[in-house]
């Protein structure tokens, strides 16, 4: 079980950074640039990890990225990778979808604790924006999750995944999928819901004061967490995957759509994004819920 979990974390780490590299490349092409090499983010994270921290704001400042990493890893380990496989299941038999939804909040909370302790008002401004946006962001996703749990009469991610042999939930419950997907864009930190880390408005975003290995941890957990979120979407709506190749293909399609949408839309302000999320995707998902 331990090796299985380690393999899950390693795969998420590699694919997470690979996708991040792709994101930077695709965005660059959209902007008419060439962009960095694919493995650049991967090297960045290792380089940063070997560097020393420049400033020390006390132990709570350091605990922030560690809590974020715990959030990312625990979320990942409670989501099975493959459909019907004994491998790469992690601890998914000990958890369920409700638990995963709560573990996903640990990352923003860890971020909030770390940033809050450094005394930089701009960082906390970003955090408040993030937590406010979370109000709107979680609502459509929760509704979709509730719909799926009621339809499958189970909160077990494995059960929801295997019950899709006759048709993916994305097609049998299209409205729930649309609602959840718009939320998912926000969870991935893509436009138009990326005001939290907006470098122009909030001077380099919430991560203003991190440096060295703690910045590396923050980056790595973001890669692992992105992959966990892609994995969750694939398992819930796209029927999971029988093999790693299928998993990569499905997560990549989802990721590509998210990146392209993110590149097209301009940024919402916090109030705008909450209002939009509470009106449009929530409304769509609620109608979908009524069909269930």
């Amino acid at each position, binding site marked *: 079980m331990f090796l299985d979990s380690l393999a899950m974390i390693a795969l998420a780490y590699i694919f997470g950074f690979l996708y991040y590299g792709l994101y930077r490349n695709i965005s660059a092409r959209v902007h008419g640039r060439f962009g960095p090499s694919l493995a650049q983010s991967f090297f960045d994270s290792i380089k940063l990890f*070997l560097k020393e921290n420049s400033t020390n704001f006390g132990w709570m400042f350091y605990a922030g990225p560690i809590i974020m990493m715990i959030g990312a890893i625990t979320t990942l380990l409670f989501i099975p990778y493959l459909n019907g496989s004994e491998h790469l299941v992690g601890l998914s038999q*000990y958890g369920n979808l409700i638990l995963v939804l709560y573990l996903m909040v640990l990352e923003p909370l860890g971020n909030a604790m770390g940033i809050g302790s450094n005394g930089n008002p701009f960082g*906390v401004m970003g955090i408040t924006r993030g937590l*406010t946006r979370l109000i709107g962001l979680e609502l459509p996703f929760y509704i979709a999750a509730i719909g799926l749990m009621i339809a499958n009469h189970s909160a077990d991610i494995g059960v929801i995944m295997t019950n899709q042999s006759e048709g993916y939930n994305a097609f049998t419950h299209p409205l729930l999928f649309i609602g959840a997907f718009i939320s998912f864009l926000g969870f991935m930190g893509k436009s138009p819901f990326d005001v939290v880390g907006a470098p122009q408005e909030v001077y380099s975003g919430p991560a203003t004061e991190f440096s060295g290995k703690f910045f590396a941890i923050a980056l790595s957990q973001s890669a692992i967490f992105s992959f966990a979120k892609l994995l969750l979407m694939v398992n819930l709506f796209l029927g999971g995957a029988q093999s790693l190749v299928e998993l990569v293909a499905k997560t990549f399609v989802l990721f590509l759509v998210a990146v392209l949408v993110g590149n097209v839309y301009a940024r919402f302000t916090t109030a705008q994004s909450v209002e939009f999320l509470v009106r449009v995707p929530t409304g769509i998902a609620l109608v979908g819920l009524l069909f*269930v």
Partner: protein
Amino acid sequence: MFNFAMTPLGNLFFGLTLIVFASLLLIKNERRDLPLHILLFASLGVIFYASDLITLFVGWEIMSWSSYFIIAKSARIETLQKYIIFNLAAGFALLGAIVLIVAFAGTTLYGEIDFGKVPEALRVPITLLLFVTIAIKSGIMPFHYWVVDTYEESDHIFSAILSAIISKAGIFLFIVIFSQIIGYRYLHGSLFDILAWLGVITSIVATFKAISQEELKRLLAYSSIAQIGYIVTVLALLEGSGIEAGLYHTIIHTLVKLLLFVNIASIIYITGKTKFSQLGNLLYDYPALFILLLIGIIALAGMPPLGGFNSKFLIYTTLLEKKKALLLVAVMFSSASAFLYCYKLIYGIYLGQASGDKEGYRELPMSFYIPQFIAAIILVLLGILPSLGIALFNPILGSLGFEVSSYSSLFELHTAFASFNGGVLMGLFGLVFALILLLVTSMRSKAVKVRDRYDISYCGETPDPQNNLHYGYGMGQELRRISFIRVILENSTATYWEHISKLSGDSSVMVKKLYSLGTQYIGLFILLFFTILLFLGVR
């Protein structure tokens, strides 16, 4: 005359009372009135162990009055008036319901009351009267009007008792009267559906109100209202599993509010300040208090791996089982919004920049830590052994005639929808934390300790003491830009109650006028009275 019985339900509530009172009495507090506290404690015992309706009512009244005199020591007269008017109304409503039940059932003993003897037409009014009592005591909207001011102005330690225990008297009354005395088969489900929605609307509104508060204790008061909203919602499903989830959340909320109110009381004791805008950056001065508050808010937010997640999980799965999807959406929405006030609480006090100097701070007696430690240890324990709560509730469910939940191990919390293992969860958290810590500390680092708090990235400028760098003041204000939250924040039931108060004032003036008329008019009224009597007699 008075009848008592030891029941599993009474034992649970009295056990909680004992934990709260015993741990709080250890705190040295020169403003505490011990006889009144003992009277209050005794009255709670009377309520929880009563086995006839009259005893219950007597206990209820003593509880309301003894807490009135305790609150009177520090509260303003308006707050006291609000408190007593609402709680008298609760008492009268309870008395009315009891009189109606006893008049038809012919007995006051819980075990002998047959609600089937009460005529159909009276069952709804009795239920409504009991709703009013429960809603007032537990602070369900629109009867929460007295709660916030009372919590804010009470003695800081007594607020913990108010929130942790006294608000639970309403929950206890709900379970005892509807499931034990009346029986669910005689109740109208539609009325309880409305109550369930009232509960969840209460929690949503109170959550947003809590986020926008500037006073520490007002935030906690609104948070109490919100949390009890969940309990009422899940109890109003009229299910055994609903009682289980409600009781679990009762335990968690009692412990969390004991911890948080004592923590806030400690901060107020040390600093003498009560607003977020006056505090900040106390983390490194009081790290133990910070960690205790962190445990408290993790449990309050219902985050794994602490006990708070268990009760949220049971609430969600109970709503899922009953297919109350919209209710569940509303509960989850409120629950997701609660992260913001949890963060405001910890950031405003312990993180960020200090507002003002730290001179004149008093040293905190060790006794303030004891209640917090007790609550924190139980919350962690429940996180590892989630089915400990189920083991505790099974005798209660059995005694009330519901199906008992089964569990294979104390580590695992099992429901029809899903299960999770608290031991594995806590173990994983511990392991990952230890591994990362090992990885990080194994490399030597020469990071420069920031001495000057103003040494931060500040858009290329250097902030000086004139810049207010503590964001705790403004946090939650920007929510007003979101239209539906603005509607919630700008409206309150105060205008509604003030209207009622004005109406009753005007009508009392009219009645008073009758008495201040001349003697000739009084003679006229007497004549009129007898004429009407005569007229009725002839007919």
